[in-house]
């Protein structure tokens, strides 16, 4: 793909660290997320069980309100479960304190948001460089931005960039940390088809070439084709987990 011409040496080193391909990275057991509305309890997620393997490309599919965002939030340590256990690389996240969760997010998770969530008062370069404040050994922001094809937009503010460019900045920011887990919340939701496909290709590349675990949440079932594993969510529960032996290239799908 045009955005992944070169694989950086330091990234290769990272890959060696992650050379446990096929091993379990994440496991959910009987996870519930409960909200209280007045005197009634409401389950956003109920008794969810699933496993995600290292360097897989996972797509979580489901309609609005099915619980997929909750799943993503729990995966990313952005929220805590009401009950059950979530293991990440053998560690139980549900026992973590706020500070431990923060550290978990900083060390292991990169997030790509539907609306990019760039800091509007910082340039593309600065948004990526922000990661240096929270983790040692992050990639050079310049390289991270080059790897998503934004060499020429380095010093533009988000408001001066197109949606696709902003989303690519957001991906550069997420991968600059060299996270083991890359979480994407409807990453193409605000983009047109062509740009969206480019973004998808970029994410697929992260999993295939750079051996990162990519988890993408979407309501768009066409994306199931590019995933190694498809998890369908419905009414706060896991409906099915399907493994895809021959995922398509992102360039092959359309919606």
């Amino acid at each position, binding site marked *: 793909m045009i955005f992944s011409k070169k694989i950086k040496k330091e990234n290769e080193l990272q890959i060696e660290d992650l050379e446990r391909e096929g091993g379990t990275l994440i496991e959910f057991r009987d996870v519930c997320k409960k909200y209280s509305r007045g005197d009634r309890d409401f389950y956003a997620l109920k008794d969810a069980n699933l496993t995600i393997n290292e360097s897989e490309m996972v797509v979580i599919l489901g309609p609005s309100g099915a619980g997929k965002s909750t799943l993503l939030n729990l995966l990313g340590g*952005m929220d805590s479960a009401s009950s059950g256990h979530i293991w990440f690389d053998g560690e139980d996240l549900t026992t973590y304190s706020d500070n431990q969760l923060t550290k978990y997010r900083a060390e292991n998770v990169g997030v790509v948001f539907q609306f990019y*969530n760039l*800091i509007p008062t910082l340039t593309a370069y600065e948004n990526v460089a922000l990661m240096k404040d929270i983790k040692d050994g992050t990639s050079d922001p310049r390289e991270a931005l080059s790897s998503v094809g934004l060499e020429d937009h380095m010093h533009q503010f988000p408001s001066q960039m197109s949606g696709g460019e902003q989303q690519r900045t957001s991906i550069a920011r997420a991968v600059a940390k060299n996270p083991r887990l890359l979480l994407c919340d409807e990453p193409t939701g605000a983009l047109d088809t062509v740009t969206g496909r480019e973004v998808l290709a970029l994410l697929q590349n992260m999993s295939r070439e750079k051996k990162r675990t990519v988890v993408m949440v979407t309501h768009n079932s066409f994306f199931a084709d590019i995933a190694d594993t498809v998890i369908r969510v419905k009414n706060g529960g896991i409906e099915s987990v399907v493994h895809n032996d021959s995922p398509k290239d992102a360039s092959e799908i359309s919606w």
Partner: protein
Amino acid sequence: MLFRKMLRDLRKNKTQFISIFLMSLLGMLVFVGLDAESSGAGAAVESYYSKYNLCDIWVAGSGFSNDDVITANKVPGVKNVEKRLSLTGTCEKYDNAYMYINFMDSNDINSLMLYEGEPFDENTEGAWVQEWFCRHNNIKLGDTIRIKIDSMTVDAIVKGIIDAPDYVYYVSEADVMYPNYTKNGLVFMPSSMYPDKSNMIYNQLIVDVRDDMTDKDNIDRLKQKIEKAFDRDDIAVTDRDQNLSFATYDAEVRQHSAMGIMFAVVFLAIALLGIVTTMARVTASQRTQIGTLKALGFSKATITIHYVSYGFVISALGCIAGAWIGYATMPPWILGMFQGSYLVPDLKGKLTTLDIEATIIAIAVATLVSFLSCRKELKDPPAVTLKPPAPKKIRHSALEKSRLWLLLDFSTQWNIRDVLRNKLRSLMGIMGVVGCAMLLICGFGCMDSINGLIDKMYGELMTAKNKIMLSSDASYGYAYDLAEKYKGQMIEETSVEFVTEKARKSGSATIIDKGNYIHIQDKDLNPVKLNREGIALTNKMAGLLGLSEGDFVKWHLVGDDEWQYTRIAQIYRDPSIQGITMYRSVFEDMDYTFRPTSILTNKSVPSDLIDEDEVSTVLNIQDMKTSFAETLEMMNAMVYIMVIAAVLLGVVVLYNLGVLSFVEKVREVATLKVLGFKSSKIRNILQKQNIWLTVIGIGFGLYSGWGMLYVICTTVSDTLDMFPIISAATYLISIAGTFAVSVAVNFMFSGKVKTIDMVDALKGVE
């Protein structure tokens, strides 16, 4: 990177941050300025007193010999004693200047500070003359000055130009309350210069106390011991706090530092309100960004520090700049004005640890406040913060549920809801208006009160056009004839001392003969007739002594050894002279002889009357009024500070508020526009709320302005009993001024209604 983000956010919200900056700057400017000024003034006089050895105790009496000096010197704790003859006289050549004259035969206590010439020496014949008086009357070393003391005349060659630590402040009888050192001189001469040597009687002992005995308790004990040592009734023993020069300066310095605190509190409170509202708005508008930062793995502490640093950086910049500017500008300005009122060398501002502490505390409080106001967005997990905030729970107020609500038109309903749901913002607006109106009322009220005081002194309480002051040569017969000739009223003005268990105070006594030029007013300022049978005591003095009508007061004339124990027949109020007033008959019933000191008359007095030996000076009341008003420069400076502060405060607070509410209302206003409301109609809706808040603010402002004026008037000094006066013009100007500021600022924002782009404003949140 977060630092860069902060700088850019600050720039983006610059109006609000500038106003916070300005408020913290103003607060610290006034506080540090006045504190550095008053500390500097205090420190300068402190070192002046110690370097030139200001005495700790004065003993006044009708005659002291060398034996008395020895007696006083023997009191344990006393280090040194000197005797003096302290008199007043005139200097014809310099516009009949009123002179304080001291004859002395040594000068180790209250040493003269020499500017030019030779040091004082009791064996050198000559005069040592006060510096300001020399400078403004063009007196040089070697000039001869002729001084008239009653019927005696002294010619002396000026040997030195000096200042004296016991004459930091003095007023002639003519000036009453404000000094005029050009027309009021001070001269020191060796005893050998006194013309009538055989009849020379020293009337003052100055006592220097051992350095370890200068605290209040020891001084009080020493005063009692000295009184016992002499065991005579004709002496008055006083300390520094009872000394006019020392006490006036001391009170002035204290008053300035109190003013500084008062102003600082007003400005800093506004700055804090600004920080609260601004930071709450900034963090609310950056909710998604905060969520993103959390999701990316920034710790709560890092994000908190980031947002708290906004308030910190701005208030630190403002406070430090304010403190520095205040220190650099206020002391020179105010101390410059001091020069005409107080004769203290080397007056300059001094930065104290309090200034630094206050700056740090102000910054700390601002930082804390910004922490508290952004904490709300930080407590939830990132998943929650990333989502838009849950809608505010809106409860209907009682008014909205009442029947009355339905009778109100839309704009009233809209504004009532808006005010009730943005209480903090509305409160801040009201506070700004209150501050503005309060300072205007208080500032102009000060002017009114001073004018009222002058009019009362010379027009209500004393109604004569001329005051002929007699010298001590004047016999009763002379005075009587003069009074007959000019159809005048004879009065005696003299000093008295009051004693209660609580306090010992010096004051004055006015004894009046028949005539109609002296009037008194009761506590509530209603004219009353002076009691024919007893004495009347001023309200302020009664308060200081803890006495009221019907009580007995113990007093004696200064220089007379007989104590009187008299029932207070009446309490009256006088703005500038505290003490007692009585009819001549009452005075004579106590076996005193009535010795008129001046004659009040409405008839014009020939200018050559002054040449007579029995007349010391003739005062034109109109001149006194004018010169009195001119010398109140200090008070005027306060008025300027208050008026400037008022306008700045009003503009800054209301502008800040305007930006804030405008930004918050953009979507609502855009919606109204889309619905078809005309811009002018929307403007009226917005202006309506502003007018409500302004009216409420002005109401409170008038009240608190009066309170502030009352505090200033009643605490201004021990001898002044000022009553707060606020004229109709002041009310009008203050209300109109506040209204103008408020409406003008609001107009600027409501003008923007036209420019709101409906489509743009209704698009996405970010």
